[in-house]
């Protein structure tokens, strides 16, 4: 009986024991992609969420608990974006190496400047994020800042391959910075363009590209659009020149379509992370598609 139990446990445990690579658990697909870019063959990356999921509303599923248990590095946005599931996941996973404060835990939002820190914390204003807006990945310069820190962590956790990580980072950084300059130049003609969004998740893009948010489909952050509120928004938008209604793949498309039909403002499906549409295969194609969609709308 005892032998049998030991055997079963050994079998179950074996996939975890024979790993050579560094195991990275990313809360969001953009950080998973960044870890792949910087880690290459040395890392095994898993993402807790896909581009089709709303990262505010994830449950601490058994599969996620199991993956955090075996992770060497957890990379998340932080700033309370994952407040309803990440702390629980970390407590259930019994993995002391990836707790906040350890080298194995990286909160991306700590390494960028957060926008929209609320002055008043009152849930009557919706499900606001007390530390500031956490949707930081939509300013490509933030991706560069997080990449620098992520490269450092990979080197620290897997010092045997430190040189490889340093070289991969230098290569990525060069390509990324020149791509960001290119996108910024192309977006210059769009300065001041007004857009409607669903959730206040595009503020970093808007701040970087000089775009203006003309309204949101959600009456308040986290509160789904209601028909009375949408009618109000419709009235408010009358006569304004709006470039588009920004839609993300994980959101309900009906409110955007409803507004579009009544205003002739086009719905723009913008990638908010990697994998949000089949075409968005990495961080470069994410911003390339984002910029070209905006350019297309302006033409």
């Amino acid at each position, binding site marked *: 009986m005892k032998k049998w139990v030991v055997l079963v446990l050994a079998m179950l445990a074996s996939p*975890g024991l024979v790993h050579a690579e560094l195991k990275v658990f990313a809360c969001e697909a953009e950080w998973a992609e960044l870890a792949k870019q910087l880690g290459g063959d040395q890392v095994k990356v898993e993402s807790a969420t896909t581009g089709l999921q709303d990262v*505010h509303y994830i*449950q601490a599923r058994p*599969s996620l608990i199991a993956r955090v248990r075996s992770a060497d590095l957890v990379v998340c946005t932080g700033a309370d974006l994952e*407040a309803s599931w990440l702390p*629980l996941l970390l*407590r259930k996973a019994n993995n002391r190496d990836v707790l906040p404060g350890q080298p194995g835990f990286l909160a991306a939002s700590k390494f960028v400047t957060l926008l929209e820190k609320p002055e008043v914390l009152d849930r009557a204003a919706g*499900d606001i994020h007390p530390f500031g807006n956490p949707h930081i990945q939509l300013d490509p310069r933030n991706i560069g800042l997080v990449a620098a820190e992520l490269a450092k962590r990979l080197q620290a956790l897997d010092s045997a391959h430190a040189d490889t990580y340093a070289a991969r980072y230098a290569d990525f950084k060069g390509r990324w910075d020149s791509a960001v300059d290119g996108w910024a130049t192309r977006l210059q003609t769009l300065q001041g363009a007004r857009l409607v969004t669903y959730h206040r998740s595009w503020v970093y893009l808007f701040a970087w590209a000089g775009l203006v948010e003309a309204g949101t489909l959600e009456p308040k952050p986290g509160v789904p659009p209601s028909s009375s509120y949408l009618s109000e928004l419709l009235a408010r938008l009358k006569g304004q020149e709006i470039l588009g209604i920004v839609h993300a793949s994980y959101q309900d498309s009906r409110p955007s379509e409803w507004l579009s039909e009544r205003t002739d403002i086009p719905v723009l499906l913008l990638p908010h992370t990697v994998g949000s549409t089949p075409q968005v295969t990495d961080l470069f194609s994410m911003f390339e598609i984002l910029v070209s969609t905006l350019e297309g709308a302006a033409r």
Partner: protein
Amino acid sequence: MKRYTLIFLIALGLAGLGNPSIAQVQMTNNAFNPAMSLILDGKFAAYSGDFSGFDFAGFPLDEEVSPPPEGLSLGESEFVLSANVDDLFYGFMTVALHQDEGSTEVELEEAWIETLSLPGGLGVKAGAMYSDIGYQNSRHPHTWDFVDAPLPYAVMLGGNFADTGVQLRWLAPTDLMLEMGAELLRGESYPASGAGNSGTGAWTAFARLGGDLGDSQSWRLGLSYLSGKVVEREYDPGVGPGTDLGAFSGDSSVAIVDAVWKWAENGNPRQRNLVIQAEYLLREEDGLLDMAGDNFNGSSPYDISQDGFYIQGTYQFRPSWRVGLRYDRVSADNAPLLPPLEGLLETAGSPSRVTAMLDYSRSEFSRLRFQVANLDNGRRSDSQVMLQYIMSIGAHGAHQF
């Protein structure tokens, strides 16, 4: 004493709720306030006939198991505090207040500490806790999908099993989640009683396995066992005129099988999702019953076996709206008692219930619920209508699977 503790807690809570500890300039003593939340719960219930509580012939019940009173009532108002103690420990406490016939009662629901940094996937928890047996057992009422607990939980665990003790958990380093654990507890809570075995009167063991099926589905299966010493547990058959109080002493055991399956398109539960959950419970009790009352007087060996299950499904069809349906049932196979107690454990069929609910959540923090049920106790059936609000303020609640 209780009252002062309460006032202190509320004051602490208010300070925290109004004073976000994130403000950078402010470095006062409350900068390290724990995460706090307050849960408010109110109900309205209407019953057909003169329904005043569960009346299941042959099923002795824990006194705490009673449906909400008829008319307007307040549920539990729960105050939750939690924080890391230091880098090794995490602490958690829940205090519930409830109204009972005009007075307010304070109940310490949970107060435990947990390790954060044990190696090898191990975790230890100690204190007063909701036992981790089954699926529904560790959930507080405000996270339930229906107003009330399923019948097998009500009958066999007195709503849920919570006790004071220690828990050891191990999470296997596998791709499928495999978690195993055991608890050693005081043995003072129903179905155990009297803190037998020198204050270690109950133990549990549980194991569960879970994972995903593609992006859209996830599941969990669990197996649990609870064994408790019963020392003079109050026994009120609740039949006939006059008073009949007795005591049962012996052993009680409960085995639970639980299964949960969840679906959400692309794993994005925000828009639409479906949850099917079912549990089977089997309880066996063996010992001696002593009765001293007007109708029953005497003692007899006592050997009962009860089992029951519930299956429920909830479907969120729009971001704010859910519907749910539940069927639950309990049966008993009791050995007849010796005269003169022979009539005590005679059953009148198997109580069963069908429940339907609809709820609306404006945000993650509020919920309004409407529920109808039909309860058949084997002799007659009652219709029930309930309305409920559940609101939480303060720290963000956790999205448990």
